[in-house]
């Protein structure tokens, strides 16, 4: 049998079995199940992380056949937020059995997102992907110039012998580092 494939990565896509579809009527999806579905929505910029690993899903509210997902942006100008909103809606409609009109995604700004909300599993996934995970929040709100640099471990060779190249990397949430031992450049998901 020819199973449907993803247009981008060409991997077979999962097709829900009959029983799953019956179970997925909106009324008996629990909040936990909704969270589990959200765990499968990945950040478009750092696709190794799900939006729940990242800590940007702040709340899930169910009211009859309506669902509201509350998210918060990482950085003010994060260009991925619109995409994430679409993906949440697509996931809950296609896998969660909600009707399109009944899925609402709300953005809140306060309390401001922090890397403290990133899951431990998320940090491990980042490292395996080649991005140094954020340290516990340290000198972020310090405005003193030429502050001592944080000791960031190279995600490839584990050396702490690394130097900051730029506080601003390939996306707003990352800084650019270089390892002085293995000589590889790498991204650091900066603490925030």
């Amino acid at each position, binding site marked *: 049998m020819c199973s449907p494939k993803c247009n981008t990565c060409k991997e077979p896509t999962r097709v829900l079995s009959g029983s799953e579809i019956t179970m997925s009527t909106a009324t008996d999806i629990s909040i936990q199940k909704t969270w589990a579905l959200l765990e499968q929505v990945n950040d478009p910029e750092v696709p190794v992380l799900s939006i729940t690993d990242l800590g940007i899903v702040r709340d899930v509210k169910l009211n009859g056949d309506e669902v509201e997902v509350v998210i918060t942006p990482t950085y*003010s100008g*994060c260009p991925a937020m619109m995409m994430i909103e679409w993906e949440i809606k697509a996931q809950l409609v296609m896998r969660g059995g909600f009707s399109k009109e009944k899925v609402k995604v709300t953005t809140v700004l306060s309390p*401001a997102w922090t890397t403290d909300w990133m899951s431990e599993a998320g940090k491990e996934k980042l490292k395996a992907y080649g991005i140094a995970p954020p340290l516990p929040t340290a000198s972020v709100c310090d*405005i003193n110039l030429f502050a001592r640099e944080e000791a960031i471990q190279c995600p490839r060779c584990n050396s702490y012998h690394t130097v900051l190249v730029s*506080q601003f990397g390939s996306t707003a949430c990352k800084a650019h580092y270089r390892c002085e031992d293995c000589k590889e450049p790498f991204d650091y998901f900066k603490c925030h």
Partner: protein
Amino acid sequence: MSKQALIDYTLHLADNTLILGQRNSEWTGHGPILEQDIALSNIALDLIGQARMLYQYAAELKGGGATEDSLAYLRDAWDFNNCLLVELDKGDWAKTILRQFFFSTYQWYLYLQLQNSPDAQLAAIAGKALKEVAYHLRWSGEWVVRLGDGTEESHRRIADALANLWPYTGELTIAAPYEQSLAVAAIGVDPSSFKNEWLHKISEVLKEATLPLPPDGWMQTGGKEGKHTEHLGYVLAEMQYLQRAYPGAEW
């Protein structure tokens, strides 16, 4: 405090960030080295992100079908409440850096206070942006020191930038009527309340950069109330062109 004052104040904050974000984005693809091009583009993105949040709030307050896009793209120069400093041409790297440093220092002290505003939306935006501003301030301040205390050419360039920009810094901490009105209502911040802290930080960094603090002098004002330099029209002409020529265009 009138509702109009709150709208004007929110637009003032939004216009500052949009216009500076637009100015900084002129460097995208043209920065002196790749890492710094990316850094300034990231800062531009943060500023435009702040602008969006503020315009969304202003649109909600204004009602009558206003949207973040109509506020950004369909107002003319005299409707903009931004400070003159942010609209000036980008100049060379030294001018862009020094302007960013003056502005980030201003935003830092402003948002420190505004994050405690009883207006929940303004407080949330300020609290959110404050962390980003800390990065902008460190980055631009470090560059001011590198350029001032760098080569003969870099020193000359940033000294010229200082002479050019200084008359536009006073406006940052001189309150417009809507700022006074919001400060009286304890919703907004009177920027003159942090003038000394602003000046202290600037003096400290200029000293490290071996640049003398310019003497007190006459300061340019008017931007906060819609009286702009000739530079703003050029920014708007480029930024608004698409929506003016093809109203409602989307991609």
